[in-house]
């Protein structure tokens, strides 16, 4: 397998060892990502507790339709990503390209919906700053919206990085770079994409759902 031999870096003994290292490296990286997001989640929890009423009222100014559609889009994209990883493990490069392109399409759709949602907030003067219109009975709504934009913005940056990573994977697969033995990059890209998805799974209830029960 000349292809496989090329894939083994010179400082590793075996492909297995290289695979293990890459795998553990990705998980460690995801741990740092969790800590990175945790500062914002911490801020959200504290201020939601301190300014409960403001957060409750302000969160009703988010658009649950957009949020729900985006949740559906991201969850489905995780499915297509998983199928892509599965295809890579079986060495079916063509299928890998197909599934990853669909995943990228979903990611792009997510960004379009997010953009439309941001634009709506812009029109309604809900972006913190000079043009922010205070909401009656919710004096700290501006903190809610600040956190909303910081958290979803940081998440959107991760989605865009994901689109870049997945594009590279599709390109590599199109050049027949993966086989049954060597497919680690696709697996790792998959892990990253599921992480992006999971962050949203936490953001969705915190922003759109939690205060709507009353």
């Amino acid at each position, binding site marked *: 397998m000349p292809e496989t031999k090329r894939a083994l*870096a*010179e*400082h*590793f*003994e075996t492909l297995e*060892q290289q695979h*293990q*290292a890459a795998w*553990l*490296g990705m998980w*460690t*990286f995801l*741990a*740092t*990502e969790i*800590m*990175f*997001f*945790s*500062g*914002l989640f*911490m*801020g959200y929890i*504290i*201020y939601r507790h*301190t*300014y409960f009423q403001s957060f409750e009222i302000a969160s009703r100014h988010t658009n649950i339709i957009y949020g729900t559609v985006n949740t559906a889009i991201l969850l489905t994209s995780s499915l297509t990503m998983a199928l892509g990883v599965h295809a890579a493990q079986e060495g079916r490069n063509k299928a890998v390209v197909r599934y990853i392109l669909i995943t990228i399409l979903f990611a792009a759709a997510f960004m379009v919906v997010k953009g439309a949602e941001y634009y709506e907030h812009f029109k309604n003067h809900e972006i*913190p*700053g000079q043009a922010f219109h205070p909401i009656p009975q919710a*004096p*700290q709504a*501006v*903190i809610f919206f*600040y*956190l909303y934009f*910081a958290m979803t913005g940081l998440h959107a940056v991760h989605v865009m990085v994901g689109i870049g990573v997945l594009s590279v994977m599709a390109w590599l697969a199109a050049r027949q770079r993966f086989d049954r033995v060597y497919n680690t990059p696709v697996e790792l890209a998959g892990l990253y994409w599921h992480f992006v998805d999971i962050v949203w799974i936490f953001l969705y209830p915190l922003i759109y759902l939690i205060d709507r029960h009353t």
Partner: protein
Amino acid sequence: MNETEAVPVPAPAEVEENYLSAGHTVRSWLLTTDHKRIGLLYLFSIIFFFAIAAVAAAIMRLELLTPPGDLVLSATYNKLFTLHGVIMVWFFLIPSIPNVLGNFLIPMMIGARDVAFPKLNLLSWYLFMAGGLLALHAIIVGGVDTGWTFYTPYSSRYSNTHTVEMALGIFLSGFASILTGLNFIITVHEMRAPGLTWFRLPLFIWSHYATSLILVLATPVLAITLLLMMLERIWGLGIFDPRLGGDPVLFQHLFWFYSHPAVYIMILPSMAVVSELIPCFSRKRIFGYKFIAFASMAIAVLGFVVWGHHMFVSGQSVYAGMIFSILSFIVAIPSGIKVFNWTATLHRGSISFETPMLYALGFIGLFSLGGLTGLFLAALAVDVHVTDTYFVVAHFHYIMVGGTVLAFMGGIHFWWPKITGRMYPEKLGQLAALVTFIGFNLTFFPQFVMGYLGMPRRYHAYAPEFQIYHVLSTAGATILGVGYLLPVIYLLWSLRHGKKAGANPWGATGLEWQTPSPPPVHNFAEVPRVTGEPYDYSPQEEEKKAEDDHA
């Protein structure tokens, strides 16, 4: 482990070039993925940053010779201590031992050809330099006056200095830290030589593993905190902004959630070095190997839950203060265990006082003093009395200079023959170690006294009764400066004129000594196989133990 056939010994002609002779072009250095060369790139960079921060310290010490502010303006003084703190913490102390000695030694100590991700390792250096140069630029165009802690809302709203650029520099260097930590973790997990089980690892590796966990888990929190601070400054509002109902104390919580563990990023690697030096120069197996290994892990874990001791007077609740106080006492226990184990290793050893050992012994003394004064500060009532005084300044300099810098110097001397293939001049080395020790104590011990008497930190002018302590301190700093300069001179001299060091000039155990000095590009001609325990320094004792077991 699954290999049983002996690998044929290569003929002398096949022996690889060493890593220094493998390429002489600038390109061969700037695009290298060799962990040893990256270690040296880091060495040059941190010495450069150290020099800048040391100059700032020198100007401050000169200003403090006399009670009135007669050398620099108070605004300049604010910028000087900010510069000194930021550069020393993020661009010298944190990368010092891990990125120089850790990079150089970890793969060799575990019998690997390189770290797990050599390209990320190089990227880490570039991020570090980008961050460092950005911070330097912020200093050149006007500096920052917030102190290294960047407390909001001063940093995010009221300061008229370049806080965003400086914070961005730290933000970038943080990713360098993360990549290094990640690399070390995976390297230790996946790249160990056959037979090198976890409890056969040198304690250097255990300590660096613990450090890496902190690097990887704490640094991202600093990243998001600084990001929010920068956003707040650029956007003009944010979650730390009291005008909106935001809480500036939240910034302090997040900042110290990183910055207390960061103290252990600085001290655990020095413990790593000292754990290698003490057994080697006592010719004795280390006492309580597992205790030291687990103490490193305990420090890493407990270090995450004590950050509130920096906020006893920041408006944190009294109950939180009490809990943080108790936890801070508890975190001293694993450090104490280490000190006891090192001392027990010395007991009845055949001790010799080469330069690295002098630094190691200095470390034990100064670290103990720094640690014990840390207990004063962990006690709520005492802390309220000495908060923001020179007592605190002296305490953390005993840890960071008396601890980290001494261990770094000891490590550099110990592994210098391995890194360069040359010995340093021993007598001069011992002299420099002594000068450093004396200079250090003269600089910082008076600060404990004046701090306890009420001299506040971060002022360029002060009441005349403190002058005697400041004069002593400045005199000590001058001596300390000589102690730093001497090694620079004789180590450079030794590159050409030093005695040629063999593979193992100290008769030390450890895989890094089983390969030529300087090491070949891929470290080992063949993958070493490990069959015994680490620190196998006393065969006689082994025999005696075997006899006892039979009896």
